[in-house]
């Protein structure tokens, strides 16, 4: 049982935090919200995949990526391509000059399905593409950068430029990719209507389970020696090298893993929202993913999820009533997080949360033992 606690959830505190989150997204939201709003939450939870990936990569690993949108987009587009092909069956597209191909291709006078679209007729291949293509892409970028010891600001800018390259490419090649409007009008998945409420509900739960699974997998990484190495590399990369580790390999791995996670989010986005466009690939969405992690807590997997939900709820709420105020608020939040609470809300909770939980005495028994190492030194000392 201790294996379960430690390796998969962190410790008692981690387990409680996880259960609360799971209860919130699996029970509370579905019960309290109507279908429309639940779908919105589902959408936000897909962004959370990218935020969680940044906790691993940036919070623990110290490598800032301003291009997680790249991988979110690759996953999303792969799924969209599959769904679009299905929606573009010869019967559905009978009125086009060339039936059997997506509508935007027809509008651009394309008469034949491009080669790279063809494998997406298969659902298995699509799943493979969602998981493997972004990972390989990240591996290539990571290997090229990290083996040459490029990091920090340079790496961040290059990820940003790659996201721009991808965006411009997608927008420019509208015959092949749907251009700036993206791939829309998706209808069925293997014959089953994805626009229905019941389908969206099912996708919501699948999304939640996948997210929780990702959190567990990430926790496993963080509680292993790898996790401690991430922290060590973040603070003293050279020393880690001189302890016998090939630092580049670790960075490449975590970057590729982060890419895969983000791609899963992208694919779930397409399924739940019914379209994918380049507006989720470029500079702005990528940096928003960073802010989700920063506000929620860049060192907290669960905090990142809450950060994502909070910011997105806020954006929706403010956009309706005070749209001008929202950008000021976002800008201010960026600055405030960096200057005053770098560990986000999770960090604030760690530092000050006990003021609240103090009132509920019985909870303290859970939190006492796992609090400060200073305390436990005294306990150890007393026992040994």
């Amino acid at each position, binding site marked *: 049982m201790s294996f379960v606690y430690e390796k998969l959830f962190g410790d008692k505190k981690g387990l409680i935090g996880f259960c609360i989150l799971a209860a919130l997204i699996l029970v509370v939201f579905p019960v309290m919200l109507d279908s429309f709003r639940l779908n919105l939450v589902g959408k936000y939870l897909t962004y959370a995949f990218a935020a969680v990936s940044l906790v691993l990569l*940036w919070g623990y690993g110290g490598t*800032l990526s*301003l291009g997680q949108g790249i991988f979110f987009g690759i996953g999303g587009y792969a799924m969209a391509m599959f769904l679009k092909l299905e929606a573009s069956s010869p019967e559905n597209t009978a009125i086009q000059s060339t039936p059997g191909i997506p509508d935007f291709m027809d509008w651009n006078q394309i008469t034949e399905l491009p080669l790279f679209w063809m494998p997406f007729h298969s659902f298995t291949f699509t799943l493979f593409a969602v998981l493997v293509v972004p990972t390989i892409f990240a591996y290539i970028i990571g290997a*090229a*950068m990290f083996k*040459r*010891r*490029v990091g*920090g*600001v*340079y790496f*961040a*800018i*290059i990820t*940003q*430029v*790659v996201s*721009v*390259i991808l965006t*411009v*490419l997608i*927008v*420019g*090649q509208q015959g092949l990719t749907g251009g700036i409007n993206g791939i829309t009008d998706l209808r069925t998945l293997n014959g089953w209507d994805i626009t229905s409420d019941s389908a969206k509900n099912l996708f919501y739960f699948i999304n939640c389970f996948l997210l929780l699974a990702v959190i567990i997998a990430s926790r496993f990484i963080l509680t292993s020696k790898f996790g401690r190495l991430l922290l060590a590399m973040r603070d003293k990369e050279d020393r880690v090298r001189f302890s016998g580790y090939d630092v580049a390999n670790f960075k490449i791995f975590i970057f590729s893993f982060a890419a895969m996670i983000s791609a899963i989010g992208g694919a779930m986005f397409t399924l739940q929202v019914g379209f994918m466009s380049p507006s989720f690939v470029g*500079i702005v969405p990528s*940096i928003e993913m*960073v*802010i989700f992690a*920063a506000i929620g807590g860049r060192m907290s997997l669960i905090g990142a999820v809450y950060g994502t939900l909070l910011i997105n709820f806020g954006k929706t709420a403010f956009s309706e009533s005070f749209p*001008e105020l929202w*950008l*000021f608020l*976002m*800008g*201010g*939040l*960026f*600055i405030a*997080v*960096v*200057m005053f609470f*770098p560990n986000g809300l999770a960090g604030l909770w760690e530092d000050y949360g006990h003021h609240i939980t103090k009132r509920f005495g019985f909870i303290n028994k859970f939190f006492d033992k796992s609090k400060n190492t200073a305390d436990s030194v005294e306990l150890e000392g007393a026992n040994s």
Partner: protein
Amino acid sequence: MGGYSYDELGAIFAMQGFAGISLFSVLLLMALGLAIIFGQMGVINMAHGEFMAAGAYTTYLISSLTETYIPAFMPYYFVFSIAAAFLVAGTLGYLAEFILIRHLYKRPLDTLLATWGLSLIMQQSYRSIFGAREVSPTLPEWLMGSVKPTEMIDIPINGMFVLGLTIFTTLAVFYLMFKSSWGLRVRATTQNRVMAGAVGINTKKIDRYTFALGCGIAGMAGAAFTTIASTGPTTGTLYIVDTFMVVVFGGAASLFGTIASAFSIAQAQSILEFFISGSMAKVFTLLTLVIILMFKPEGLFASKVRR
């Protein structure tokens, strides 16, 4: 090649080359400012584009005011507004450094994020003050029109003006950085902050003025920019990625590198644009840059620094 005669090809290269020169000028001005800030202080200013926009908006403001109140001054206001753009952007930069940046010098990644926040705030301010629609100053007569050295080559005057301004600014920066005592102090601070402080250089003030200078130059880029296109709240974001690439590609610490880098990138893109579509030209240029950077991460024109 492509069905054009040599004469025509020559003219195309000349004109695309010159279109590239305008782009080059704006890029170089922006990159100069950013290179000074990044190269000297290791700070990445994601709001750099917004300082450029500040200069552009200042020019627009002065244009409107002159038009309304002192119409006789119209032919002269533009040069005056370039100086004003420098001062306004520079002052904003000074304030930004004082309030925000100076707390974050040891944390470059966090500076990146904080300045992005600043850029959001600035963009929204522009939207609130000037509106979401794009605006343009009324350009004076002498900037309009073009010069035709040959039948087929048509060189716009505003392009030449911007180029002239860029050359002047680059020389001024070079003089300032390498020939003046202030520049010496800045370089000393960059190379060895502790020692510089020990010999009595007020490193904090140097940082503040350096940042302000970088932003001021961006403001001038903004003023120059108004001769090419109109200005909106998000204009700053148009060139920021290209500017970063120029700086990173050129090797941030090298003035010559920045110039060479801006020139090659602008030219490559313009000339390519004629033969393949605009978007593919950009993709191709950026992709080449990224690949080159993967082999030479310190930039193509970087000077050797002992690790």
